[in-house]
């Protein structure tokens, strides 16, 4: 069965690109428009992985990661955060909140897939 990956991002274009790339490589995708939306959906749906932006309205990426790790259903899933090069401190913050890894924006579809394969095994 195809693995399910959630992409949480307030930018529709990034969501679209992530989602398309993942689907093309045989993954199923669930989209969330911000941290709050993502956390609500993750409360009831089991996914295999989460790819989240850090800067989002309502609930940001750090809050989302903490929320997922504190929950039960998706507690152990790999979480990849999308960061920009200016956010080294945010990266550390994300790691300590429980993120598994990160991808630096901008990234190419192949880079995304390489990271997904790396953490999903």
């Amino acid at each position, binding site marked *: 069965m195809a693995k399910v990956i959630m992409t949480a991002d307030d930018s*529709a274009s990034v969501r679209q690109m992530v989602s398309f790339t993942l689907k*093309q490589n045989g993954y199923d995708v669930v989209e969330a428009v911000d941290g709050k939306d993502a956390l609500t959906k993750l409360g009831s749906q089991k996914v295999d992985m989460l790819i989240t932006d850090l800067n989002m309205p309502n609930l940001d990426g750090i809050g989302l990661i903490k929320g997922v790790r504190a929950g039960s259903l998706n507690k152990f899933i790999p979480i990849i955060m999308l960061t920009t090069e200016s956010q080294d401190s945010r990266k550390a913050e994300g790691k300590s909140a429980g993120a598994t890894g990160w991808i630096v924006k901008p990234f190419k579809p192949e880079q995304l897939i390489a990271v997904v394969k790396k953490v999903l095994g």
Partner: protein
Amino acid sequence: MMEQAIATYREEATELLAELETSLLELEENPQDDDLINRVFRAMHTIKGSGAMFGFDDIARFTHEVETVFDQVRNGKLFVTRPLLDLTLQARDQISTMLQASAGGPPADETKGQQIIAGLQALLPQSAAPVVKETKLAEQPAAQGEVCQRTFRIRFKPAPDIMLGGTNPLNLLNELRSLGQCEIVTHLDAIPPIRELVPEQCHFYWDIIITTPHGMDALKDVFIFVEDDCDLKIDLINDTAAITAEGDANYKNLGEILVERGDLSPVEMQKILSMQKRFGELLVEQGILPQSKVEAALLEQQQVRQARQEKTVQETALSIRVPAERLDYLVNLVGELVTVQAHLTQTADEKNDGDIIAIAEEVERLISELRDTTLTMRMLPIGSTFSKFKRLVRDLSTELGKEIDLETAGAETELDKTVIEKLNDPLVHLIRNSIDHGIEMPEVRRAAGKAPKGIIHLGAVHSGDSVLVTIRDNGAGLNKEAIRAKAVERGLITAGAELSDKEIYNLIFAPGFSTAKAVTSVSGRGVGMDVVKKAIEALRGSIDINSTPGTGSVITLKIPLTLAIIETLLVRIDDNFFVLPLAMVEECIELTRADVEAAHGRNLAHVRGTLIPYVSLREQFGITGAQPDIEQVVIAGVNGSRIGFVVDDVVGEHQTVIKSLGKLYRDVQGISGATILGDGTVALILDPHLLVRDVERSELQQFG
């Protein structure tokens, strides 16, 4: 797809710019409002981040500067002032112009942009000017030159709560395995007693010795996400590039390795050394180190020594090119030699002379070694054929408007040169079939909830004295009803015939069978799978098909490693000798007159409660002469069922050098070649597949 995302980005950016303007104007009235500052920052962040993703590099670069300033504001290091807001609003307009320029509008004024940036940078406190650090995932550095293998020692000790961060340490070990030859030792000594054990924690740690063409950076990249959550030590312990030609194949002693790793102190090493026993055993015995640590160090020693040895060998004699026909000639000679050796052994046995028997045995041993060596010389990796198919898949799928990827595995699997050549056409046919009939059109796939891109997987793997080649697609699978209907229409089966799934699938190998509704340029001209099956059987291989509706089909070809010499079972009928490929033979049983009478004229034998149909080779080949009271049945696996072949006597196993029969006999059914026995007698090589088919056909004509 990209165009669509770019269009989405333009819309999104336009909306964000509008929002930015409003926020900035509001900020003028409430300069302390953190919420507003955050909103401004986020808007610019998204414009920048997504812009870079979709090729708007100029916008990304420009916005980055503005964003840097607002990052300072957000962190309370800079206050919202009138000049700042003015510059930011100008910057907003600049971004807007740049966005329009990319959509065909007038180009943006670059000098103006630079002025805005200079103005913004002037507002920054000096020390806060950011240092942009590149932390992208490093591309793997290409291996330097040709074979430059390095050996690394890695100790990977993850923090106990590593799994809470979503990392599965096993994935990391698997990733290392994919980089090179890997020896992994797991240490269990950090695992707490079961009462204190928290199941969510990881207490394993590993010593890994890896020999790889990749550099240190590639190895570090494996652990890039966990750097801070583990004790990681990577040391270069051997670099074959640095070894001189006379290369010392020895490596450090176990004690030295352990001392270097910090697992053992030099004093302890000396103490143990003075005891003059096996060092590793003593360490364990004395309880200084657990067995696993010693093993890990021993593995390192082994692997480095091996790598150095290989390097030396490579440098002295890389390879020699030999014309193929010279090899063929050599194989022929070895074949003759095997025949002569059989003769020698037989004669020695007859003379019953101990000295000659001893010599014969010696010769037999040497010749079997010579045979094996010669045959492996003709082995080639199957990968060369695989790479040709990439092109085939690419071209054909485009022609048909389908999206298909070809994945290959086991390209390094070795097969006899001739076998590989003869395998090419059947594989082309099977792959064409998968492309044409297997994988659906992208829209059909999408409608079925599958990825629009289909995958054809081509794999090869050793299995005993054969190689299994599999062609797997994730297409529609075989349509059982269509095959059945077609088979009835062609008169291959009766309408009421009860067939298992496997039997139905096997119908597609019947001559003249094709279920394609329309004849395409790719396949479906009726010369189909039967040709493939014949070609595979000519290689003394077999073909097996499996399919799940909706998820795809798998075709497995079982191909013998070589064509020149095979292991066979020698049997006798009257004074004629035959051989059967030993790989197909499952067992031998006796058949008495009473058994035959009890079966009332049907050719069925009772074997441990099951009925096995048999073919009487005596009848089949019209051999006259006295039939013995007790005959032998050789039971062979043919097309997945067990079929018996009745002979007078089973002589024993035989090394068979295959000789072809020549053009005159090419239409003979059921015989695939001949061989010469030790005493010069000719034995015919039986082809159980064809024999069974022949019998089936005559039965059909008789009763069908």
